[in-house]
């Protein structure tokens, strides 16, 4: 653990300027992942830039088009329990409440959730190589113990998975990430925010150095009635997903007008395939169709020595979660399987 300086900017532009003075400076909001990485000696900030005093980032407001803007500094708990989120985006509430613990959700922020690092145990162990931590050094997870690792979108350099629950729902909801930096403001569609490892596994996302997330926009939708988030893990609560599924359905009677399905715990980013969603469009909301969509979504899935179980598990989870979305009341707290 290194010592570091501590800065308290009074404005967003001052925060961005402070980030620009040293590549090792880091923004801190909730700190629940950043301080953990610092304690593991994986992150060595020169200065922490405390953005908690920037009220411009700390509100949830309605957008002109009928959606919601979630401030980057709003906590996970404040977001999940916000009346407008519960009413219009209950899938997001469910996903947030399936993640972490109540204490961490009281601290962790929306912006920070997007930026959390993988929980790959080789990444956390500085005694072993890791292409994400030390590019070019190798990947012990490939050929090692890889029960928690990716089945989709991995590369021969990295098979780590992105651990967020919240982001699985944000992916399904076509959220947009608003960022600012020394080059100005940008809007990043959620599908383009996180990236696959490819030959640059050190990069989790497409933020530029020093850029700051300011908000997450949720477009209006018709998914507040039929939705479900299912999280499968080694214990019932307070554990990362082996497989998770966010399903949102817009139904016309028994016919699917529009479907969204996103997977967590299976790839370096929340996993969607629009072909699977297009397949469901106009079809009956029945098990056989959800099973066929699951096959499309899992096309190209590849297991390693210890995680091959994730492929059939994901298929069953997609089907089960789609059926639970027909009756959201069947879901238990913590996104557990229905009784």
């Amino acid at each position, binding site marked *: 653990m290194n010592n570091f300086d501590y800065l308290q900017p009074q404005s967003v532009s001052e925060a961005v300027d402070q980030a620009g003075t040293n590549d090792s400076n880091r923004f801190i909001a909730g700190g629940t992942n950043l301080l953990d990485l610092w304690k593991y000696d994986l992150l060595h900030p020169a200065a922490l830039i405390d953005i908690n005093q920037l009220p411009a980032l700390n509100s949830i407001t309605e957008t002109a088009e009928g959606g919601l803007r979630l401030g980057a500094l709003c906590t996970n708990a404040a977001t999940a329990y916000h009346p407008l989120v519960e009413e219009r985006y209950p899938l997001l509430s469910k996903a947030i409440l399936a993640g972490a*613990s109540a204490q961490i959700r009281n601290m962790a922020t929306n912006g920070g959730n997007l930026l959390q690092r993988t929980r790959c145990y080789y990444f956390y162990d500085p005694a072993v190589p890791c292409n994400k931590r030390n590019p070019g050094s190798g990947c012990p997870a490939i050929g090692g113990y890889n029960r928690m690792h990716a089945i989709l979108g991995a590369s021969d350099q990295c098979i780590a998975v992105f651990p967020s629950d919240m982001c699985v729902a944000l992916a399904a909801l076509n959220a947009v990430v608003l960022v600012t930096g020394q080059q100005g403001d940008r809007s990043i569609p959620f599908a383009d925010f996180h990236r696959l490892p490819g030959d640059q596994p050190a990069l989790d996302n497409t933020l530029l150095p020093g850029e700051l997330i300011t908000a997450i926009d949720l477009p209006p939708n018709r998914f507040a009635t039929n939705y479900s988030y299912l999280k499968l893990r080694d214990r019932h609560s307070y554990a990362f997903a082996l497989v998770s599924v966010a399903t949102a359905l817009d139904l016309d009677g028994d016919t699917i007008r529009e479907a969204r399905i996103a997977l967590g715990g299976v790839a370096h980013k929340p996993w969607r395939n629009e072909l699977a969603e297009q397949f469901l469009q106009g079809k009956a909301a029945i098990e056989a169709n959800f099973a066929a969509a699951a096959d499309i979504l899992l096309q190209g899935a590849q297991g390693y020595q210890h995680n091959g179980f994730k492929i059939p598990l994901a298929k069953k989870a997609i089907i089960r979660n789609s059926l639970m979305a027909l009756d959201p009341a069947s879901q238990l707290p913590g996104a557990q399987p229905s009784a």
Partner: protein
Amino acid sequence: MSYPAARPVTFSVNGVSHTLSLAPWVTLLDALRERLRLTGTKKGCDHGQCGACTVLCNDQRILSCMTLAVMKQGAAITTIEGIATGDTLHPLQQAFIDHDAFQCGYCTPGQICSAIGMLREGKARTRTEVKELMSGNLCRCGANKTIIDAIMEVKESYE
């Protein structure tokens, strides 16, 4: 290597205002235990995985091991030492005794502070939901059943 100077930080703990001179990297947990000698708050994993360090910050339950003390300027912190009223135990303290809700006791201060925060949040209706919303506090002795019994008794007496 030159280290940034310690700086004054003022926050209240159990209703008493304290001004400490702290380096930026001192956690709230270490400030409570090492500087204020309030050792009721426990350091378990020190990585946000066990909940033993749970305290209330402005009435919300947080993990003091994952919090820098310098970030809590002006905050009102409550620890296990601050929840009784004189010699009268907090209802959760009494319920933990009545239900034998601990073995070694190491997780107990965090369990009780977390339960106070959970009851104040008002989101748990059923025992299943209480268990879910208390899952951030681990008990390695396995006293979880009586811990939830104790919390349910207090929860129901409030309702």
